């Protein structure tokens, strides 16, 4: 055997290898080419479908986004409406409470004024009654002191005349 360096070129090996390769090529071409091509086509279709699906999903997502944005806008509108209604209701309630409070305050004030008037009237009447009592007490004392038998007789005579007149 001829020894050579690490790399040596052998023509027979090369030809054998080439023949092997050609045989292998045809075998592969004959038995596996269509299958591999089908797999690749299938894979390509699958990828195409995925891309199309992704695009459709993208479009759908865009539509959903628009839809959600619309919904969000509606919700915001409704939210504003609710807040406006709530504000209006709160305002109405506030006004009602204020009105009620005013009415109650007026009633309390009126009652207090009426009570004051009543007390004032009572006090005035009491003073008046005391003055009347005192005046009549003084008048009675003076009359008692001033009455003499002649005056008694005159009064009784006057009474007798009136008894005779009225029937």
């Amino acid at each position, binding site marked *: 055997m001829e020894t050579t360096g690490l790399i040596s070129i052998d023509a027979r090996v090369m030809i054998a290898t080439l023949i092997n390769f050609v045989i292998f090529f045809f075998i592969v071409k004959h038995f596996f080419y269509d299958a591999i091509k089908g797999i690749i086509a299938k894979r390509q279709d699958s990828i195409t479908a995925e891309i199309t699906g992704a695009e459709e999903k993208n479009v759908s997502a865009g539509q959903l986004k628009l839809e959600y944005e619309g919904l969000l806008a509606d919700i915001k509108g409704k939210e504003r409406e609710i807040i406006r209604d709530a504000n209006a209701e709160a305002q109405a309630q506030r006004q009602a409470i204020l009105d009620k409070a005013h009415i109650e305050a007026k009633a309390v004030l009126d009652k207090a004024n009426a009570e004051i008037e009543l007390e004032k009237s009572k006090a*005035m*009447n009491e003073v*008046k*009654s005391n003055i*009347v*009592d005192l*005046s*009549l007490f003084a*008048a*009675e004392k003076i*009359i*008692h002191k001033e*009455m003499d*038998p002649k*005056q*008694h*007789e005159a*009064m*009784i*005579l*006057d*009474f*007798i*005349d*009136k*008894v*005779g007149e*009225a*029937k």
Partner: protein
Amino acid sequence: MSLVAKRYAQALFDTAVDKNIVDEVFDEFSTVIDLFKSEAELMDLMLTPSINTSEKKGILNRIYKEESLNQYLKNFLDILLDRSRFEYVVEINETFRQLVFPYKNTVEAVVKTAVPLDETLRVALEKNLEKRFDKKVILDNQIDETIIGGAVVYVGDQIIDGSIRNQLNQMKTQMNSIRL
């Protein structure tokens, strides 16, 4: 008025009318009652259960002698003793008077004055009251210094008030009705 008093008074009244002695019985019965009212001890004696009826009749007989009472009235008072109804005698007298007054077209009146009414005034008032009520009036004068002056007459349920007290009261009502 009790039923007992009414029954006995009616019996006495019927007898007095029947015998035409109404005035006599009326005056004498009133005198006896005035005596019992003024002598409370005498009335107590008449109502004391421990004193028997004959002793009580003896007391009545002494009164009869002094007052020379009508026989029918004497018998009536004896019957009250016999039937233990003497406690009703004052009430019977009052009922009897109420029966006699309409019969005699008479009415009792009370006049209240601050000073005693002299006879002239009493008669004048009696006369005017008789004119006013068209009835004979038996007038009793009572002293009431609280009326101050003038007079107040009570006839049945009617009051004729001519007193200073009444005038002062009217003045008080008028003054109190003035609104300030």
